[in-house]
């Protein structure tokens, strides 16, 4: 079902946690709420589910206002970070619980539980108790239980953050596969930009109780609305400069731009910068750190002192202090007005 938030505000003991949030998640869409901890993304999830009362605005689910509906009538199922399996029920009982409580016959919910266990690749685990399962298995059961409740909107609250790195990728694929199969409108809360970029149809980037930008992963990465958005999505370096008569100029690069005249900062991703084999060696390697497949290098412009970050493939032929030339791919550089 479509989920729509209109000017949703939440205040907890006088503190405004969410400031007039408006957001529409289309039916069957996978949307990530991305932001640093404390930005209000988990609060937003709880407000959607009606666990935290809203102080203003509306939550609209499937075209109908859910403002007056208590949590258990909203059909907004949350999978929490700590999974919360009921400790006194087996895996199958946990999964069958939402159906059992709706008055389904024993044979019916037992059958659904077995089917869903198979869907989350836990065939044969029906009689396991939660304390007999690993973190990944517990999460699969929690996911199956959420699906058993046939949610209008599935809300995932940082569900992968407590898992091992290796397991995370498997779980992400499983979640995406099930989400597509069941066509469930899904909202994922995460602070992991990689997770948001790889999984989502659209990303809502949040900071300080507001949504800074709501767009597809490609657009939000390639044309961030502000420096804050750009910085959250990846490493960036900035070159101070100005635009005059359609040309951006800094001490290092010059390229055409359609921005009006004024002071700007040109944002460069590490991937836009490469060390050139030939040319004017006007940069010095100021920092070099090993990162496995590549080195992250901070290059300092000898003349202006401007610093630019880039990646160098391993093995790295350079050493700290070496002087190098750079080729900068200015086509993708993004200009932000300088806020001075």
């Amino acid at each position, binding site marked *: 079902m479509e989920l729509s938030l209109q000017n949703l505000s939440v205040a907890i003991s006088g503190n405004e946690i969410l400031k007039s949030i408006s957001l529409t998640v289309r039916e069957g869409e996978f949307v990530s709420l991305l932001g640093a901890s404390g930005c209000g993304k988990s609060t937003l999830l709880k407000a959607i589910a009606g666990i935290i009362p809203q102080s203003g605005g509306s939550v609209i689910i499937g075209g109908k206002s859910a403002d007056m509906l*208590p949590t258990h009538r909203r059909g907004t*199922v949350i999978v929490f970070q700590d999974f919360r399996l009921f400790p006194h029920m087996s895996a199958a009982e946990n999964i069958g619980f939402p159906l059992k409580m709706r008055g389904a016959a024993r044979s019916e919910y037992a059958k659904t539980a077995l089917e869903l266990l198979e869907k989350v690749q836990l065939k044969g685990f029906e009689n396991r108790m939660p304390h007999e399962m690993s973190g990944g298995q517990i999460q699969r059961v929690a996911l199956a239980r959420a699906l058993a409740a046939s949610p209008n909107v599935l809300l995932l609250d940082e569900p992968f953050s407590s898992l091992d790195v290796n397991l995370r990728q498997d779980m992400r694929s499983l979640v995406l596969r099930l989400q597509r199969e069941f066509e469930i409108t899904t909202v994922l809360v995460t602070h992991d930009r990689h997770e948001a970029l790889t999984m989502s149809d659209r990303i809502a980037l949040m900071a300080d109780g507001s949504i800074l930008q709501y767009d597809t992963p490609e657009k939000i990465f390639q044309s961030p609305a502000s420096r804050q958005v750009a910085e959250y999505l990846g490493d960036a370096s900035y070159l101070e400069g100005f635009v005059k008569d359609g040309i951006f100029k800094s001490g290092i690069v010059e390229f055409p731009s359609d921005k009006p005249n004024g002071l700007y900062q040109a944002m460069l991703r590490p991937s836009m910068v490469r060390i050139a084999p030939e040319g004017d060696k006007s940069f010095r390697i100021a920092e070099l750190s090993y990162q496995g497949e590549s080195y992250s290098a901070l290059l300092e412009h000898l003349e202006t002192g401007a610093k630019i970050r880039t990646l160098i493939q391993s093995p790295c032929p350079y050493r700290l202090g070496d002087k190098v030339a750079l080729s900068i791919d200015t086509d993708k550089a993004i200009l932000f007005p300088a806020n001075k």
Partner: protein
Amino acid sequence: MKNKRSLFHKIIVYTAILSIAAPIMVLLLWSFASRWAWPKLLPEGFSLRAFDELFGPHSPVMPVLLSSMGISLGVAVLSAAIGTITARAIALYDFWGKELVSFGSILPIIVPGTAFAMGIHVVFIRLGLADTVLGVMLVHIIYALPYTVNIMLDVTRLVGDTHEVQSRVLGVSPSRTFIHVSLPQLMPGIMSSISMAYIISFSQYFLTLMIGGGSVKTFAVMMVPFIQSGDRTISSAYSLLFLASTAAVFIMIEALIKRFAFWRDKTE
């Protein structure tokens, strides 16, 4: 080293067993003794006087014991229920006057028993509750509540409301959530509360005498005069019966706990 440790361990275990078993053995001997004066190591004669007193055809003891167990079980279940609800309010909800309720729940054990009983007595006379079984049960409940509230407060805080929230987002109503999700997890604490409140109520002498005014006879009310009068044979027999009946109730509660013990397979 290991030997020393196991020896120490044995000493503790046997001391514990001895300190429970020895007094019971003495009670058992006394119950059937006719005369047992110092410095004799064993009674000089045996009799079934106490047995007659307790179980004889005209003895009121068994009916009183049964009604007393009934009163105490009623008190235990009710105060565990009130304790569960109060603890839930204090642990999970914010409301005006919460600190006051929290403090008020331990007042009955802070105020000296006599002062407490006198005050309650006056109130109960006005309400017409003095000298009634209901009055006695009420005063026992009030006296047992601080214990049950505190036991349940710990358990409720431990269980928390995270599973309840999970259940509600899965579409289960709050009342069904409480029955199917919270109650099973609170059950061990509820059983402890019942045991605690039972023993408090069952051993209550002064409060029962004061509020019941002698017309409500409980086992403790019948037993204490024998102890005070120094009739050791009868007192010992009463004490043994007291222990046996309480043990029976506790075994019953224990069996109920096992029924709810979802952690039964937990071995780590």
